[in-house]
């Protein structure tokens, strides 16, 4: 599969169809694959495809296009949907990006592997969708798949120019909604306790915001001083405000790639709440983000007969 990806990338670069191909390459630290930017046809050999290719590349796509380059990208299901969402928000045109779609069997968080394997200084890591092994220690990949990938509804890219590999079915709606449904089964006080405890660990590093392809505001609400929506310190209410505010801005836009949860140094869980929001958006507005590119996301539009049960 990787050979086909490299071949397409090489052709596109040689033909001048794209100026740069964004994909993943080998990292220099254990269990990491790093995003790489290939500009020369021969460099396509650096491209890899394995369960360590965790992050969402759509943010880079936007950045490169806005810098004036024609962009090619090796996209998983979530990358492709994020590109769809950015198109729906008119960040760039479809013709600006060429997508090598690769159906994805799920990715693994580096943090999870570092915990499982401990200190693997210098040893060679091998990773595929059967198992991940270091030296003579090996675990099944299925066991360590990231939370967001376990509930992925669209592992096969919906937007692509070339599709490499067999289409993969996403999970059912029930399976996707499970983490949210289980969270909602807790009573109110327990939910509030859960979220105050977890959001209360936030160190305001903003890695979640930077990793997210749909967080691209020139001035984030948290950086605004006039009006100052929230303080920058560690007061628990400010921590709650930051996280709630960021998630509010994701409602109807998030594609649940899980990058935010994957990069968070404090292991704050986002899968349940983002799944819960996308579930409600689907139920209320019959919308799943990143699929249709010609209609705006739900909070940027309306229908005259929208539900309004809670309004007096």
């Amino acid at each position, binding site marked *: 599969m990787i050979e086909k990806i490299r071949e397409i990338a090489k052709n596109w670069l040689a033909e001048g169809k794209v100026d740069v191909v964004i994909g993943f390459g080998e*990292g*220099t*630290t*254990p269990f*990491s*694959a*790093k*995003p*790489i*930017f290939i500009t020369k046809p021969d460099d396509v050999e650096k491209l890899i495809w394995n369960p360590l290719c965790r*992050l969402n590349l759509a*943010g*880079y796509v936007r950045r*490169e296009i806005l810098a004036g380059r024609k962009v090619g990208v090796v996209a998983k299901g979530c990358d492709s949907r994020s590109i769809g969402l950015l198109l729906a928000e008119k960040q760039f045109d479809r013709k600006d990006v060429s997508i090598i779609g690769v159906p994805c069997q799920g990715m693994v968080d*580096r*943090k999870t592997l*570092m*915990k499982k394997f401990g*200190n*693997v*200084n*210098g040893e060679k890591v091998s990773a595929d969708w059967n198992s991940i092994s270091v030296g003579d220690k090996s675990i099944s990949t299925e066991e360590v798949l990231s939370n967001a990938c376990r509930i992925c509804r669209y592992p096969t890219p919906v937007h692509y120019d070339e599709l490499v590999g067999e289409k993969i079915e996403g999970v059912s709606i029930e399976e996707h909604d499970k983490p949210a449904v289980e969270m909602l089964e807790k009573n109110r006080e327990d939910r509030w306790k859960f979220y105050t405890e977890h959001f209360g*660990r936030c*160190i*305001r*590093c*903003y*890695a979640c915001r*930077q*990793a997210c392809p749909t967080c691209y505001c020139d*001035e984030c609400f948290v*950086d605004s001083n006039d009006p100052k929506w929230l*303080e*920058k*310190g*560690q*007061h628990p209410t400010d921590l709650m405000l930051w996280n709630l505010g960021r998630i509010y801005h994701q409602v109807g836009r998030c594609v649940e790639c899980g990058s935010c949860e*994957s*990069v968070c*140094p*404090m*292991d704050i869980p986002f899968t349940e709440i983002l799944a819960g929001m996308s579930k409600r958006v689907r139920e209320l507005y019959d919308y799943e983000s990143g699929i249709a590119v010609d209609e705006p996301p739900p909070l940027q539009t309306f229908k005259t007969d929208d539900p309004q049960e809670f309004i007096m």
Partner: protein
Amino acid sequence: MKVATKKELFDCFSGMKVFAPVGKNLRFAEVSSADEIASPESIPLSPKEAFIPQDETLFFYDNPDDPTSIVEPEIDEKPFVVWGMHPCDAKAMELIGKVYSEGNYTDGYFVRRYNASVKVVIGCPVPHPGCFCGSFEGMGPFSKSGSDIFLIPLDDERFLVEGTTEKGENLITSLPDATDEDVAKGEAQKKKGEDAIDRSVPTENIENSMQALFDSEEFWGDIYHRCMGCGMCTYVCPSCYCFDIQDERIGDKYRRYRVWDSCQFGLFTLEASGHNPRPTQKERIRQRMMHKLSFFKLRYGDEHLCVGCGRCVAICPVGIDIRDVAKRAEALAK
């Protein structure tokens, strides 16, 4: 040389506040018993938190127009213990001290905390992936610089304990002396760490090599494209010391406080005119690398600001590796 279990050593500090890594994310917080002190299993934040808190009050005031209404916060200057530092962290605090206490303007908040602290530093027989402190001259996994009490782990339960300053020595007088066997074990642990540590990162002349590459698109192009500007490197780094100052109001009381800021954030160098001298990630990631491996040594004398702790290497989500940057710079300079 003394020897002690975690609990025995902890008891030497009775009556003092002890800050140690706790919980699953190893934030530095006050602990009341030795059992609360966590063993590392996740990527730890650095102990810089104990000296430069993430959210630190500078002063309170009632009237923004009246400077005499300023009330300084109470900084407890009683001695307190910071447990769980490594040699890299202790060195980093010394380096921050250079910035914050030399010259005409000292940062009283940091200096008072630093002077009041008893730094319990633990040597590293098994360096983590990404650690490369041994690449810096005079540094290594058992360097005692910046410590008050130095620990060498013997096995899971016991440490060899050495008071490296008078302050530290006075606290451990009640501990039993180490046997010759213990001392030998300690030497073996020390050798283990010093053999294992990465000494391959070129730091001798790196400050000049990097200066020469300041404008090189080829050199910086390899890393800035994928940098997301998340700033996690600066948050986990023990020698990153930049901060942002904010004012807060509750009712008719005001507080001026500072929080960690990061040169990787887009607005870090945004000026009131709207001009930003570091407008893209290229300038920002270059700034960080140059500061750690070039500017600081050129400005302050004989040491680099990077201490080789490896935390940024371990935590960067896109695999930007400062060791790799140094190696490539040295190679390109030849």
